[in-house]
């Protein structure tokens, strides 16, 4: 295995991990506020189609990315209204959002199937990108840098800023947070919107960078993986980052194993990422102390202020 090949594999893994990172960091913030939004897949699909449509129509990829963020937020707002204002069940509403998003994206995207997209070029940071080995970390596409920046930013926000403290307080005990005078609904709504924006970005990454094209259901279950990664990372951004890389790694390496001719049925290799996720989820959840310290205690519970 040459250094060049290793670098190629690492780059591929980072690319595979980026959409997962976007979506799971967004969901992490949503869940930290106590809301479980299972509609990531639907928000991603909408982000992918709107991102592609805007980029293709205007010829401006940056505008496409903005469009994707707005599309994700619009979907999230729908979810927010239903679950936070109408206090509907979050699990079922999330599933509805997925269904709705996949369907609507298919309808909207009808005109954009089979159209080549623009794509985003990689950005090499001078000097740093010439470094041996770690140089590849400075030759990524702009959205991957953004994903890393968001991860660091979220980590900083959650544990170093007052806003993050309020967010976590709302997620851990909405009644106490309410008693302290915080608007639980408003905080949660913002967290849901942030999650939607990130899912939209994840979708845009798929349709503008990963494979610059739009096709129906091109998210192919990545939204669900992102949800699993949040638990996997015990609601900590840095662990989610590791999880995204690990998952991306397993799904890429199984393809390499096939190309090398390992002789294991490809279905088993394709199942590997899912089995890995289950195993890791079990290992993580066995460690009760770790989980309890970080799980938002009010996750999935609706809040209606009594007055």
């Amino acid at each position, binding site marked *: 295995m040459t250094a060049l090949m290793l670098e190629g594999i690492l780059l591929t893994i980072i690319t595979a991990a980026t959409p997962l990172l976007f979506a799971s960091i967004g969901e992490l913030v949503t869940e930290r506020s106590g809301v479980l939004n299972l509609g990531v897949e639907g928000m991603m699909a909408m982000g992918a189609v709107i991102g592609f449509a805007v980029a293709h129509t205007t010829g401006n990829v940056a505008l496409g990315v903005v469009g994707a963020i707005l599309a994700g937020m619009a979907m999230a707002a729908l979810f927010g209204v239903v679950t936070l204002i109408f206090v509907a069940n979050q699990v*079922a509403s999330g599933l509805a959002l997925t*269904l709705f998003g996949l369907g609507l994206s298919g309808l909207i995207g009808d005109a954009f199937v089979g159209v080549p997209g623009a794509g985003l070029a990689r950005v090499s940071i001078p000097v740093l990108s010439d470094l041996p080995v770690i140089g590849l970390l400075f030759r990524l596409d702009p959205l991957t840098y953004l994903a890393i920046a968001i991860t660091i930013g979220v980590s900083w926000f959650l544990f170093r800023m007052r806003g993050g403290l309020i967010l976590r307080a709302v997620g851990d005990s909405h009644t106490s947070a309410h008693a302290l005078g915080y608007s639980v609904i408003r905080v949660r709504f913002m967290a849901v919107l942030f999650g939607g924006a990130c899912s939209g970005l994840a979708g845009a990454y798929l349709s503008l960078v990963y494979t610059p094209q739009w096709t129906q259901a091109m998210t192919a279950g990545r939204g669900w993986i992102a949800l699993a990664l949040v638990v996997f990372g015990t609601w900590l951004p840095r662990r989610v980052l590791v999880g995204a890389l690990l998952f991306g790694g397993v799904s890429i390496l199984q393809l390499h194993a096939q190309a090398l001719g390992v002789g294991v049925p490809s279905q088993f290799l394709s*199942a590997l990422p899912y089995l890995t996720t289950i195993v890791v989820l079990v290992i993580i959840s066995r460690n009760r102390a770790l989980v309890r310290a970080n799980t938002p205690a009010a996750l999935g519970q609706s809040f209606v202020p009594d007055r």
Partner: protein
Amino acid sequence: MRVELVRRGERSAAMAYLSPLLALLLTLIGGALIVIVWRVVAMDTSAPDSGGLFGAIQQGFADYGRFLYVFFIEPLTAMWSIEDLIAKATPIILVAIGLSFCFLSNTWNIGAEGQIAVGAITGSFLPIFFPEWQGPFILPAMLILGMLGGMAYASIPALLKIRFGTNEILTSLMLVYVAQLFLDWLARGPWRNPEGHNFPDSRPFDGDQLLPTLFGTNIRISVLFVFVAAFAAWFLMRWTKTGFQIRVLGQAPRAGAFAGFSQKRMVLLTFLISGALAGLAGASEIAGPVGQLRTTVSPGYGFTAIIVAFLGRLNPIGAIFAGFLLALSYLGGEGAQIALGMSDQTTRVFQGMLLFFVLACDSFIFYRLQIVRRPVVPQTQAVAS
């Protein structure tokens, strides 16, 4: 001044019946908006006979009327179509009845699709390995094996949840992909029909290995399982202590715990029930409409059943009505493609909207809208430090 939700003194019986209808109405309105917006967006204003914005809206209404007819009414106008409806609704309702138990007790089995696949696999075991076996016992044995398979597979997320506290939503969902890939491997590999020109299907089942049909129609007796299961489920929920425990643990877990009800036992029990019914649905498909083991057995019944369970307000009898409505939307969706050339995605959009509105409207059972003239929330003084 703003509008707020206020908790009702007690559950509104009227709203419990009205809310699904209200949701349906809102879905129809939402659908109209989408179709009309579509017309307006696609409007070709340069064309001389376009009729402008008004013409587009009018055209949208006409389209929508035709669409509603093809979607909701036409499938009910012929016997063969009704038979199709029953065949399509059967597996969905079976699964939804089982899921109602889970969701009522606040456990989340999202993996019924995988349990259907496993039920189909275990249900196929006998006719694949003993193709000559006929007689009165083969079919019941297949169905029971299917149920056991579904139960065993559903017990994995349940046991992981009980033993390690692992999130069952995610494990049950991941297991769907695993089961589907395993089924794919079986159908293409070891269980492939040796006389099938290397095409990826098992040998076709025949004779007593297939579910009989009723009164010379295309309806298979599996439709009776639906009614048996619905009645049994209704009885279990309404009249037994277990049913009471499920409901208490779902609505007020702490109260349930004080009363000495075991949350863990309920998780396992509800997963086993839903797994058994999903497995039965899988086995009924391979012994019924499919007639062999294929690389995919269910086109998403396990996920559709989640909508059906909620639409039927987690009530087994409700699930029957909801199941037929959803099955209707599939048939109608196909009809709309043939007659009007509409995309199959329309069906999904409708299902998603319907579920959204049902969930939102359910709030009115326990809450009512009230107009508030001034903000009630006290201004923030306290600071969390």
